[in-house]
């Protein structure tokens, strides 16, 4: 028997047997298609929103970094007008060692000693000291770091001996500022930017331990010997 399909015989009107079935025959096909389309749309929309959000976050991040840099420059300029001995005493009162102050200024310890005794410093060196002073002031006030000298002296990642002082000594005030920020920056990302080869450089099986005489010593880590 051949089944003939007469389109004209199909109407939109319900027949007795189709009452209540129309939705169940057409609706599942349309609902799934709609759903797929709708979810696809949502997915695209979310992707766009995430991208927009990332863009906004990135822009805000850049703007924040720029504003902090601007703040560092203006605060540095303010401090640069202070007597050098005053700035040095300020850093000393904060707890910095004279050796570290010399390193931050890019000069020798005897040079800093002479400055303390009243000898003048070059404009560039004075600027360096003013910049460190400004940095300490900003992170103390903006990020509420109570003891900036201790914070800067402590390695910020457990697997590398790199400190905030190392960042400042190498003119990476931007990284130190990000590290000080309270937006949950990953210290590892700071290390990656500062010393991309840090993993190879500091990878070692040698560890420090306390010897029986109470003094520190070096030994191969257990399992590595």
């Amino acid at each position, binding site marked *: 028997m051949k089944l003939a399909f007469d389109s004209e015989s199909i109407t939109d009107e319900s027949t007795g047997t189709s009452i209540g079935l129309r939705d169940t025959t057409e609706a599942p096909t349309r609902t799934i298609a709609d759903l797929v389309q709708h979810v696809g749309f949502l997915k695209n929309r979310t992707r766009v929103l995430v991208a927009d959000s990332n863009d906004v976050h990135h822009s805000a991040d850049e703007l924040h970094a720029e504003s902090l840099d601007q703040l560092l420059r203006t605060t540095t300029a303010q401090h640069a007008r202070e007597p050098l001995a005053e700035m040095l005493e300020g850093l*000393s*009162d*904060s*707890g*910095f*060692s*004279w*050796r570290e102050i010399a390193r931050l200024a890019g000069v*020798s*310890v*005897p040079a800093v*000693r002479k400055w303390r005794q009243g000898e003048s410093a070059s404009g560039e060196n004075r600027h360096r000291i003013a910049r460190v002073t400004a940095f300490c002031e900003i992170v103390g006030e903006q990020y509420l770091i109570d*003891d900036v*000298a*201790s914070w800067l*002296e*402590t*390695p910020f990642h457990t697997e590398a*001996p790199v*400190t905030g002082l190392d960042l400042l000594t190498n003119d990476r005030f931007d990284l130190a500022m990000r590290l000080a920020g309270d937006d949950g920056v990953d210290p590892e990302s700071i290390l990656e930017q500062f010393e991309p080869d840090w993993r190879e450089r*500091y990878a*070692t099986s*040698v*560890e*420090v331990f306390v010897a029986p005489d109470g*003094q*520190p*010593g*070096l030994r191969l880590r257990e399992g590595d010997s």
Partner: protein
Amino acid sequence: MLEYPSSVEDLYLASFREEVEPSRPVLTGDVFEGVTIPGVDERDYALILTHPCSMRKDGVNLVDRLLMARVTEAPDLPLPDWATGHFKVMPLPALMGGSYAARFAEIGLVQSSQVQDSRRVACLTPFGINLLQQRFIWHLTRFLAPTHRLNEASASVFEEADLCEEWVMVTTEQGGTAHQAETDFHEWIRTEDESGTRRQSDLADPQRRAGIRREMRRHLQTRSG
């Protein structure tokens, strides 16, 4: 391979006799002039090899004999060449305006009284001392000890030397002998701070060093009235 400094400035706290701060305690890496090393028998410059932790018998007075290496003029090596050769020496570039090296094959025990009667012409930085130790360990054992681990083991002694230097400098300016000042410093550093920990022990923790410095500076200001 072995490490090397990125610049000569990384090596020295003082590289000319005029730069040496007399109040700095005698330490590993110090170079003296006119020293006769038994067995070497040439009156020459000599560098202290004794480990920083083993130099004093009571925290103040030097042990009876110090291990020293003869220092003679030597070719000026490119810094990267330190990594791959010249393992029998510790190069000392730009020392007293010339190029020298401490010779690990010409070493001996020198009476500390002779050292104290001699003139100190140079002091190494902690990094310089760590490099010296790395090279000497390599020379003796062919074991490569990373400088950041050597530093971790000796950092508290370096810090103590810095604090002692500052204490002696400040207090002798107000009168009194250097030896008395050193004795007073060691009494202070070995007593407990407000938290009940010996200050000397606190120096092992980088997070506490700035606090000890601040405390010492306040103490010295109070003493001076």
